[in-house]
């Protein structure tokens, strides 16, 4: 009945009637999730109006793609999902919508995959402002456009007041991995270089300050951004990237520990080489935090062969998402499974996995 394959459509050129303006309610109520007209109006007005692509506009129960179309990008499918329950919904530098799209796009990109399509499942709390929902959806579309992906299918549920904290958002994503690209946490080898694409700890700091009564004022904003095209630029000069992960919860320290353990190698970090904004350093000093454990939402850690490190670094620095990329360490044989920090002061210490969330301290 409807068009199955996503032709080369550009969002906005679908030839569909604009559907905005149908929802007059200011707040979400249970009717919006009940499957009836109120829900259809909500979907058409808020979601279709924003996401605006032919696959979604067809309003089928599923999005269908030809395999041949997918195979143009590579030979394996990458598939991931993530659920976002961030509090507060809006924070400096982004919101739950930006996170939901960038987070899933990045999970795909970390395998080297070209991110293509996302689904979007929402659980909305009764009483949520429709205006807030529109803002979140607009952020999702903006980020999707930046990332070159389409949100092609979704689901909406409404639960009673108190059963959800404003909004829980799930995105699942599919992408295609180019032939020959084999990125895995097990691939790190002695001599490899460890690279990050820019300033560390921005998101974690911004969220911590936004969430608590810490009274700290600063201009730190979340670094939330999709990394698909940065990864493509890196692969163009170095198809044999060994390991790559985005340093979300638990920060760079967690990712490096995962690599060290999976590859059974040591990773030696150079504290003086870590890119950190002055304000993040300042916030960490006041609150007693270690930036290595702070979350990022637009930063990746890559482990590449030593002989390709300079080229990869140059390619990253030429890209807007990698302007402040830096080599922060190297892979060694011993002590296996351990991450060691060479402090700027001249000593050494291990950087272990963190237990639980890092909290501000006064001692």
């Amino acid at each position, binding site marked *: 009945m409807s068009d199955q394959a996503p032709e080369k459509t550009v969002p906005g050129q679908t030839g569909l009637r604009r559907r905005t303006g149908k929802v007059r309610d200011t707040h979400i109520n249970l009717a919006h999730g009940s499957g009836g007209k109120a829900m259809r109006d909500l979907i058409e007005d808020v979601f279709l109006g924003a996401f605006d692509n032919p696959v979604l506009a067809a309003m089928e129960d599923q999005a269908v793609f030809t395999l041949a179309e997918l195979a143009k990008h590579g030979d394996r499918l990458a598939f991931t999902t993530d659920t976002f329950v961030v509090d507060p919904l809006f924070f400096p530098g982004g919101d739950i919508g930006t996170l939901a799209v960038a987070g899933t796009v990045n999970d795909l990109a970390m395998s080297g995959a070209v991110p293509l399509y996302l689904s979007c499942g929402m659980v909305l709390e009764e009483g949520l402002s429709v205006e807030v929902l529109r803002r979140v959806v607009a952020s999702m579309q903006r980020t999707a456009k930046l990332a070159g992906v389409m949100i092609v299918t979704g689901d909406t549920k409404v639960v009673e007041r108190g059963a959800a904290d404003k909004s829980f958002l799930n995105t699942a994503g599919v992408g295609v991995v180019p032939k020959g690209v084999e990125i895995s946490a097990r691939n790190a080898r002695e001599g490899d270089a460890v690279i990050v694409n820019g300033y560390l700890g921005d998101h974690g700091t911004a969220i911590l300050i936004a969430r*608590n009564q810490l009274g700290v004022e600063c201009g730190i904003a979340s670094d939330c951004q999709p990394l698909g095209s940065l990864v493509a630029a890196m692969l163009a000069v170095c198809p044999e990237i060994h390991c790559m992960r985005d340093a979300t919860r638990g920060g760079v320290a967690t990712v490096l520990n995962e690599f060290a353990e999976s590859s059974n190698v040591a990773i030696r970090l150079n504290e*003086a080489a870590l890119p950190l904004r002055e304000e993040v350093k300042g916030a960490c000093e006041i609150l007693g935090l270690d930036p290595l454990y702070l979350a990022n939402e637009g930063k990746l850690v890559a482990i590449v062969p030593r002989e390709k490190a300079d080229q990869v670094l140059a390619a990253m620095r030429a890209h807007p998402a990698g302007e402040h990329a830096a080599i922060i360490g190297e892979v*060694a044989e011993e002590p296996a499974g351990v991450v060691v920090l060479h402090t700027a002061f001249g*000593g050494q210490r*291990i950087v272990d996995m963190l237990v639980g969330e890092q909290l501000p301290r006064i*001692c």
Partner: protein
Amino acid sequence: MKYVDEFRDPEKAKTLSREIRHLVAGIARAKQRPLQIMEVCGGHTHAIFRYGIAQLLPDEIEFVHGPGCPVCVLPMGRVDDCVALAELPHVIFATFGDAIRVPGSKKSLLKAKADGADVRMVYSPLDALKLARDNPDREVIFFGLGFETTMPSTAMTVLQAKAENLTNFSLFCNHITIIPTIKAILDSPDLHLDGFLGPGHVSMVIGLRSYEFIAEHYRKPITISGFEPLDVLHSVWMVIKQIAEGRAEVENQYGRIVPRNGNEIALAAVDRVFETREFFEWRGLGSIDHSGVRVREEFAEFDAERKFSVPNLKIADPKACQCGEVLKGVIKPQQCKVFGTACTPEMPLGSLMVSTEGACAAYYNYGRIDTTGLKKRAPSEATLVTTEGAP
């Protein structure tokens, strides 16, 4: 950052490291057994591990980690009292982040929060006061934790609450004093310490005179130290120099912050609001006379202990716990039978593993690798890739 970066200078670290080695070579008894220096304050323990300072010192010097960690010495019974208060209806329980994960006999404050109690993390007691102003229909209880460094701030907040005639703000006071603790350490027959690194920020408040008994009566050198790594290394040098020259004095390395007489305004505020308790319970160390403070009668309406009833039970540590011995420096963290096995940061038995500055947590998170040879490897031996440093 000014007054921070200069005191992290690796070149000066190398200088001090050399001088310390030179001095130690001339101390005869250091050849028989390592010189044991106790850093009293948990903040120094944290700095030592965080910057890898032990690696810059010769094997003849050993740090013995002291009990100056107010979270580490918080008895489980007091944590239970906190939880009981937090679980009262209408209460907002405000606490520093440090205390939130310490396990009580049933749960920690973090778990209480997950179970529905309104526990809020604050950076300052003033933030708790603001919560009281902003929530007139709720009772705000602030968990006052810490040594003399933090006491003045809590005292000033209580004075502010009184000035504003707030009726919904109170303090659950767990402030403790450092001098009785140091005395208990010195009197302990298990310890053979050669010198002390004194608490820089406590001293900023109380001044230097209170430590004189250490030098005069016990004949041990003590250097009041700042918290940047260069401060710590410099202080170690000063203590070693005292030992080498046969001196036992109170020295002040942290002159840029610590005045001889302390901070009189801060001391006056403390004296107005608080009085000494006859004794106070310290986890792992038992009861120590005159080591805690409570709110004076004049400010009774701001004393959570008078306003609310708490279980106030003395809970024994788990049998396997050797927190007390580690706190006193009798054993090292890795010598505790349950270190790393039954007691880990994921599942802490004792508070030394929970607190970020607890010796066990610090050792587990930062220093564990020392036993596998990291200490033997001088930093210059590890050549690091640094094509371009941080932008």
